[in-house]
């Protein structure tokens, strides 16, 4: 228990660093702000790794399973209604401890990388202040013991994401992307809030553990109430869980709320690595995992999770094959991989080995965080070197950027799922879980695995091979940018050997995951086929890829334009939301609200103009009015008494 007392530090330190860098950063700490932020993150990383070691390997276990520990739990806001209160708590259980490690390690790497990448920026201290704010909010999100507290931090990560996407606020594109990200996720969060309120009011608690306990017990009043009440033929519990999932889908860029993620790449590249690849976008997965026992009791909601995930995985993988912006390819790849995590949760069972999907999902979250942030940081170095995002401007960079080349290759192999790299193990587990859960989804997953290998190696060959060396503006990056790449590559290499089924399981009881050699033949063959196709098409310059694109015709054009989802949204917002809701609301605001306020002002002025002549400065006139008033009053009061 003694290590739990260090947990509040995990929140206090980054908040403090945000405050210090935010207040004094621009004046007195201009040079040292990066170092301060990085040192704070280093301390956080040490604490969280120590906590994880204690929690998983040293701390005492309960019935052979991992305990849930409250590091802090204080009532904060009492509603005075149905015993509802928002508490501020810090909850330690296997998934939050695992997330601590992921967040702090990736954040530390991104901090170190940013020391070199953001050097010479005008708003260098502000950047580190925002990074600290993000780290604080993300750690708070995973440690929340209370669904409402989680919602607060959920919005805080949204704000820090908004601030960092719009970091280059002089560029209109970045501003538009930041607004888009904020509005789309806010829209999804509306669903999340309604879901929270439904769950909270019915179960009479916001606390995660009590909530799960009450809503998984088929005899509790909360469960019966939520099951018997229905709206449009769907029970209240399903509605609540689906609405909560809408919030998660918005943050995790699931179809059809994914449109903000590719645009979010307008932010600085390390930010994309941290927020839009490794940590914030998996918040939706974390949310579903947190409430998994409740989801598991509700097949409709769980199926929604599974199919949204599977559809997003395939959809994004297809789009990723056609994009020409290096960061956009990676963004769609992120969306596809998060789709993987989602459907793994969706097909999972509960307890023991049937909870494999849950374990696999969080395993993939863990490994994906490292290799995807590695890919983004590598992309950062490449963009830094040639000052362009476009794949057309790249090619033959393997001689100019040897370290980046090697680490990028490792990450590509990892994400494609080539043994023995980390991505292979987690993806195998997911596919195995899908095979046992839902064959349709398994097929989609398999197809996506092949596509993943194809588009990742398309990216790799287009950047590093394809044509004789491109001219590089700046040589290989400084050490501060290379070291994170090497560390992340090392983690990506070995992370697959972590026995995740011993650590993170649905019922917190470790189980032995079996590894089927025969099962992995099919995915592996597809992966190899994907890699070889990419090699044939893109290793050497040629027209083959263009011919293939032509052969796909309309389908290729559709994927290139992201299947016109953005256009559909624009059409709906312009023609329906603006016309039916927006402009009447604007008119109401201008004419009724503004009109009322202006009318009040104008009326007052009109009356004042009329009566200001009374105030003429003649003291005797005032006296006369005063005496007249007294006379009238005395007549009234004396007369009143007489009657």
């Amino acid at each position, binding site marked *: 228990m003694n290590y739990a007392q260090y947990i509040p530090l995990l929140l206090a330190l980054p908040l403090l660093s945000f405050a210090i860098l935010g207040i004094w950063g621009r004046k007195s700490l201009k040079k040292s702000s990066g170092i301060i932020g990085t040192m704070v993150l280093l301390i956080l990383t040490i604490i969280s790794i120590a906590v994880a070691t204690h929690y998983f390997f040293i701390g005492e276990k309960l019935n052979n399973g991992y305990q849930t520990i409250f590091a802090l739990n204080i009532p904060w806001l009492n509603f005075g209604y149905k015993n509802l209160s928002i508490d501020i708590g810090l909850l330690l259980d296997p998934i939050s401890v695992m997330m601590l490690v992921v967040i702090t390690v990736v954040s530390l790497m991104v901090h170190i990388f940013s020391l070199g990448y953001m050097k010479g920026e005008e708003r260098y201290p502000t950047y580190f202040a925002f990074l600290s704010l993000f780290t604080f909010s993300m750690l708070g999100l995973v440690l929340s013991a209370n669904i409402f507290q989680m919602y607060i931090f959920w919005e805080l990560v949204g704000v820090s994401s908004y601030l960092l996407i719009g970091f280059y606020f002089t560029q209109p594109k970045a501003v538009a992307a930041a607004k888009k990200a904020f509005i789309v996720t806010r829209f999804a969060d509306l669903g999340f809030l309604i879901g929270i309120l439904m769950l909270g009011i019915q179960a009479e608690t916001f606390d995660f553990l009590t909530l799960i306990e009450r809503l998984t017990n088929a005899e509790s009043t909360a469960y019966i109430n939520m099951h018997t009440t229905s709206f449009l033929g769907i029970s209240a519990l399903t509605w609540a869980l689906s609405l909560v999932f809408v919030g998660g889908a918005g943050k995790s860029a699931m179809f059809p709320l994914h449109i903000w993620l590719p645009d979010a790449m307008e932010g600085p590249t390390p930010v994309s690595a941290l927020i839009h690849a490794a940590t914030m976008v998996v918040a939706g997965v974390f949310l579903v995992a947190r409430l998994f026992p409740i989801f598991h009791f509700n097949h409709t909601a769980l199926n929604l999770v599974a199919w949204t995930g599977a559809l997003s995985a395939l959809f994004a993988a297809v789009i990723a094959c056609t994009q020409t912006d290096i960061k956009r390819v990676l963004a769609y790849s992120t969306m596809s991989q998060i789709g993987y995590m989602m459907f793994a949760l969706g097909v999972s069972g509960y307890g023991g080995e049937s909870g494999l999907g849950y374990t696999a999902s969080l395993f993939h979250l863990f490994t994906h965080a490292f290799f995807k942030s590695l890919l983004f940081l590598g992309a950062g170095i490449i963009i830094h070197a040639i000052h362009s995002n476009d794949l057309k401007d790249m090619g033959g960079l393997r001689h100019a950027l040897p370290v980046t080349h090697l680490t990028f290759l490792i990450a590509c192999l990892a994400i494609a799922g080539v043994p023995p790299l980390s991505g292979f193990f987690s993806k195998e587990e997911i596919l195995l879980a899908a095979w046992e859960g839902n064959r349709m989804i398994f097929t989609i997953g398999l197809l996506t695995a092949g596509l993943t290998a194809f588009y990742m190696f398309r990216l790799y060959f287009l950047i590093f091979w394809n044509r004789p060396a491109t001219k590089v503006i700046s040589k290989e990056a400084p050490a501060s940018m290379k070291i994170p790449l090497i560390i992340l590559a090392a983690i990506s290499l070995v992370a697959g050997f972590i026995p995740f089924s011993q650590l993170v399981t649905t019922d917190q009881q470790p189980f032995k995951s079996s590894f089927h050699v025969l099962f992995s033949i099919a995915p592996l063959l597809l992966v190899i086929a994907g890699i070889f196709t990419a090699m044939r098409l893109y290793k050497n310059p040629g027209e083959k890829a263009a011919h293939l694109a032509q052969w796909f015709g309309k389908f290729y054009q559709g994927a290139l334009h992201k299947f016109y989802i953005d256009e559909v949204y624009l059409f709906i917002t312009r023609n329906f939301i603006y016309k039916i809701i927006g402009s009447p609301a604007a008119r109401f605001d201008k004419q009724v609200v503004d009109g009322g306020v202006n009318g009040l002002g104008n009326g007052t002025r009109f009356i004042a103009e009329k009566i200001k002549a009374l105030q003429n*400065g003649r*003291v005797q006139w005032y006296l006369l009015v005063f005496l007249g008033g007294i006379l009238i009053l005395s007549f009234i009061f004396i007369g009143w008494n007489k009657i």
Partner: protein
Amino acid sequence: MNYLQEILVISTALFFIGIYGLLTRRNIIAILMSVELMLNSVNINFVAFNKYLYPNSLDGIFFSIFIITIAAAEVALAIAIVINLYRNHDSVDIDSTTLLKY
């Protein structure tokens, strides 16, 4: 002999003469004099009531002495203001002091 009624008539007359002066005089000094008339009508009231209604107590008389003292102080102050007004406006006409308005 009870002259209370007559005395009250006189004091009321004095009071309204004071108000009339207050409202119609243009000269500030004359206005001040009107105020004094009103104060003295009140003094007459106090003394008369004391004498005829409560002959055994002295409250009314004390009160009128008190009012006379206050009136003296007030006049000193008012004269000071009038002198300042005269210095600024070169006149003691109340119509010249209508600057404090909209």
